[in-house]
């Protein structure tokens, strides 16, 4: 017993910082996810010529909290023939996998829970892939046909697209030469160019595959409400349902972070090595000031006093963040924090853009049919990504032969990407031709 206590103490003494960070993330992430949902609804409303949530707080800013309270106090329904143990376990598994994956991510050079993990990006990808079990088991445990079909669809989709996503990651890793997240970003700094520019086809493949992996539209078949009600989540309600929701959005953040780290330069500002572009550093505080000023301008238009105060508070928050962002550049005392603070901003900014793109697609595109989705994955994305890995590998070899570095690597990788694109178009063309002719209608029994 004493040994255990001693070990625990030792552990806590050594790893107190990551522990605290982890607890903070578990505590704060639901809130973040809630606001991501609010932002999604607002963006959706904006694109669809309406207002979105407006009732709770000014411009619906407190909506996530109201939603959370509603979900928590909802009745917890467990279907009668459900497998109680698995029904209980499945959402927890989903969330656990998603949250665990966050541990490996680095939000700026200063914020990383599991620091310097040798297998960094693989850890993130591998652990987040375990979320499938939450889906499959949840669908099975509900003992409902909708759920089971949704779960099977979902897992088939995840497994299929993971291959393409993995191949796309390999391209980025070829440039980085390391799995460690810090090293990957450092490699992009050394090269002076984002890997997404060096391997655009890989980035594109990862983009599509990551949408499919997070079950977002146009690949949201598992929860296609016009066909399967809510897929694997059909029988879940209240808190359990919100756990699934949390896992889904956390997964979105995770894939966006992976893409940002590997393809979009992580926490580096655009053109990290170009010194005459250093004024870009002033963009973050200016952006925050802009948002704050906008909030101030909106304040007099709020109908209720509480809402005005709230709007002022939001504006104040924006100004405070702007102050924090600008401090490392102006105050010499906090200069060492420069990279940490601005890096965190850039990382979050890029992740937000990536997620915004997800949302944009969701509101624009119709939904694939399941066979079309599978055909897209297996006949198009996977071959394309494998060919792309080959071509990028060749480009790398040629590049090393001529001692190409950074931007000049584009000389070899852009032909590779162009060839990959041509092949992609070729595949698409043959796809179109070989699209299975719909078998003429089954024998007519009424005839």
């Amino acid at each position, binding site marked *: 017993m004493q*040994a*255990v206590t001693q*070990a625990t103490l030792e552990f806590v003494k050594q790893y107190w910082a990551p522990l605290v960070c982890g607890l903070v993330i578990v505590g704060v992430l639901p809130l973040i996810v809630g606001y991501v949902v609010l932002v999604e609804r607002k963006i959706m409303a904006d694109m669809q010529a309406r207002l979105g949530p407006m009732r709770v707080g000014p411009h619906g800013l407190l909506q996530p909290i109201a939603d959370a309270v509603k979900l928590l106090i909802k009745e917890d329904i467990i279907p009668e023939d459900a497998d109680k143990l698995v029904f209980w376990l499945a959402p927890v598994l989903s969330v656990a996998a998603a949250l665990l994956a966050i541990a490996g991510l680095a939000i700026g050079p200063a914020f990383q829970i599991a620091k310097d993990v040798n*297998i960094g990006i693989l850890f993130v*990808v591998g652990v987040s892939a375990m979320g499938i*079990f939450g889906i499959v*088991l949840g669908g099975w445990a509900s003992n409902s046909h909708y759920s089971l079909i949704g779960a099977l669809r979902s*897992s088939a989709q995840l497994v299929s697209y993971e291959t393409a996503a993995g191949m796309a990651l390999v391209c980025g890793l070829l440039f980085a030469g390391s799995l460690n997240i810090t090293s990957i970003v450092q490699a992009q700094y050394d090269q002076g160019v984002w890997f997404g520019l060096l391997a655009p086809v890989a980035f594109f493949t990862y983009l599509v595959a990551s949408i499919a992996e997070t079950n977002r539209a146009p690949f949201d078949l598992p929860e296609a409400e016009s066909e399967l009600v809510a897929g694997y989540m059909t029988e879940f309600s209240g808190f359990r349902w919100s756990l699934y929701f949390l896992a889904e959005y956390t997964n979105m953040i995770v894939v966006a972070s992976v893409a940002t780290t590997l393809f979009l330069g992580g926490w580096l500002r655009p053109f990290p090595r170009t010194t005459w572009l250093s004024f870009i550093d002033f963009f973050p505080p200016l952006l925050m000031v802009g948002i704050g000023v906008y909030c101030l301008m909106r304040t007099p238009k709020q109908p209720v006093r509480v809402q005005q105060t709230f709007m002022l508070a939001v504006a104040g928050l924006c100004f405070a963040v702007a102050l924090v962002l600008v401090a490392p550049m102006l105050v010499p005392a906090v200069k060492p924090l420069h990279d940490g603070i601005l890096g965190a901003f850039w990382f979050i900014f890029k992740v937000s853009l990536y997620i915004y793109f997800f949302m944009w697609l969701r509101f624009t595109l119709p939904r694939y049919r399941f066979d079309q989705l599978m055909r897209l994955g297996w006949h198009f994305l996977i071959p394309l990504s494998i060919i792309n890995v080959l071509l990028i590998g060749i480009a790398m070899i040629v590049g090393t032969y001529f001692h190409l570095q950074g931007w000049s690597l584009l000389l070899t990788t852009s032909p590779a990407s162009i060839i990959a694109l041509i092949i992609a178009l070729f595949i698409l063309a043959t796809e179109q031709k070989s699209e299975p002719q719909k078998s003429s209608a089954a024998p007519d029994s009424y005839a």
Partner: protein
Amino acid sequence: MLDQVIFYFFAAIAVISAILTVTRRNVVHSAIFLITALLATAGIFLQLRAEFLFIVQIILYVGGIMVLFVFVIMLVNLDVAVRQLRFARQKWVALLISLALAAQVGLMLWSTGKMPGQGVPVLAAVPADKLPLNSEAVAKSLFETYLLPFEIASVLLLVAMIGAVVMAKKRT
């Protein structure tokens, strides 16, 4: 000290869930406990500082093979599993095999311990940052010394893939 606690923790989980894997009636529960056992084994790998193997275990075993298992379990009929007898057959064979195996390892450990001048070897405690970077080391070994086996393994996987497709294909 920390190492030991971690080892005992994961070992206990692995053994308990392994036992539950073979004793549960419901195949889905079996699969869940097998996943737990595999994850605990991954933990043991991590404790042994084999990070690359840890993640391969998670990605391939848990994320790949077990998903396949769960898939197939859901495709085939589950009711059979619930009605079946659990340990009706070959109880004695099982007992015999396990005793023999236990005796072998026991003998081995006992004889090693008896050897003059050395006891059972103990894994040296090396601080984590002194170890060579694990994935790089594995990659080097895999692609230099064991390149041929690696290629053969890939052919094996190809064969297995074709075999699986042929087996599972719907005969028309």
